[in-house]
């Protein structure tokens, strides 16, 4: 299982997975967590922040979406600034290096324990890898009070920037988290995974070649070092085949 960066640049390669993601989000938030405001007759969770400004990190396991989260730069419209301004004491943090983290949906109670464990860790590791790639130093968002101990267990330091507020189905508050890359090493050690988990496909590939290229990238990422020599041989043979 890898975590894919899906944004406006490469979205065309992931049309099926993007729909799966919106359906999975509806399943988790409207059906499992029973957030009434997110119930939708088409059983897709899509809101006004699912725009070209959003980047999704999506855990994909052989074409099946196992979890996702949404990241939006703080200089674009986002929930804390636009919708839940009152949740924050003073001004919401904003500026380069600050992104909002929302719609965190790891796994599903109907998946196996092992898969849910993997997804939970992979999504968090992917957040650190993505943060490193974009120079993100701080994440902001709103957390349910019941989820915070789990976030802290995963090594995040969760600093409140607002007092808890009732939101109908629970109590949550606005937070700020500093990105400490040392924690990513601890998460990798706990999961027992030392290779890269994040896949970011370049823009410009069309659907079919995009799928092929993704598969090739995933295979290459899983290749053990001792097999690289053999893989190079195969590639050489392939490149000499007459077209």
């Amino acid at each position, binding site marked *: 299982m890898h975590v894919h960066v899906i944004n406006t640049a490469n979205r065309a390669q992931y049309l099926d997975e993007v729909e799966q993601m919106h359906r999975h989000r509806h399943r988790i938030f409207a059906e499992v967590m029973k957030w009434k405001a997110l119930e939708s007759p088409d059983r897709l969770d899509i809101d006004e922040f699912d725009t070209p400004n959003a980047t999704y990190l999506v855990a994909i396991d052989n074409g099946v979406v196992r979890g996702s989260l949404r990241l939006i730069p703080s200089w674009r419209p986002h929930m804390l600034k636009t919708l839940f301004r009152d949740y924050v004491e003073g001004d919401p943090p904003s500026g380069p290096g600050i992104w909002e983290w929302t719609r965190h949906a790891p796994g599903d109670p109907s998946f196996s324990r092992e898969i849910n464990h993997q997804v939970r860790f992979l999504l968090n590791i992917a957040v650190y890898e993505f943060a490193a790639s974009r120079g993100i130093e701080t994440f902001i968002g709103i957390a349910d009070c019941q989820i*915070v*101990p*789990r976030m*802290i267990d995963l090594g995040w330091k*969760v*600093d409140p*920037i607002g*007092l*808890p507020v009732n939101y109908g189905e629970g*109590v949550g508050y606005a937070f700020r988290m500093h990105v400490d890359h040392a924690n990513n090493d601890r998460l990798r050690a706990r999961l027992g995974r030392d290779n890269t988990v994040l896949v970011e496909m370049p823009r410009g590939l069309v659907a079919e070649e995009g799928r092929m290229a993704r598969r090739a990238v995933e295979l290459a990422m899983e290749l053990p070092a001792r097999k690289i020599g053999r893989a190079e041989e195969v590639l050489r043979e392939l490149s000499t085949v007459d077209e």
Partner: protein
Amino acid sequence: MSATTKPSIAVLNEPVQAGPVFAFAEISQTAETLDEVDHALKRVLNEFGIGHFVLYQATDRAKRPTGARIAGPMHKDWRKHYVDNGMANYDELLSWGLHSAAPTTWTKFSAEHDISDGQKLMFDEAKCFGLNDGFYLPIHQADGSMHGVSMMVPQKLESDSRILAALHLLALYYSIAANRLGLSPPEPPSPPEGSKGILTPRQRQCLQWVRAGKSSWEIGEILSLSEHTVNEHLEEARKRLKVYTTTQAVIEAALRGLIHI
């Protein structure tokens, strides 16, 4: 503050400043010892006029308390009253919290539930101590253990008020600190083969707390037992280990692997 003078409790009025709570959240995540966190907690309790604070931890399946932290200017007076009268037995908040994860207050709980006479009596008696309302938050951990955090205050707690929100955050972050730093001491080890049955789990637990330097009264606080019951456990432990003093009993039990050194 000396134990003989009855402290008057400050009442915090709205609007509540969030700054001290945020500062407490910071300390609870960075402090290296729980004592450091307790020190910060004491400051916030005074500032917010919280008369009595309890965090208890339940790790076993029966959800009996296995550890606790108790603080606040009124804690000795009220806690003694609570323990002497066996109030834990009819404190419905405790049993309700086993199956709930939402915060509540005495006012809200009384309005939503058909509470027993024993419970009413407890709320009424707390008022004699100047504690007119209480906040309770059950926190269930991923491993099946739980924390229950209770805070008692002189004023009525209105729902959706900032003071209620502030108490919620304080309770949450204290629980996070207690999880990270551990409520000492650890549970006694499981006894080695051949030593099973020498002491009961409660006797070992009491000895483990004696080892941690707690008095019988304090152990009673922590384990929700009366001081008398704790002394009985310790006396029985001395008999079974065939020693005369509690210090000898601690050493003997440690040597036999019945408690941690």
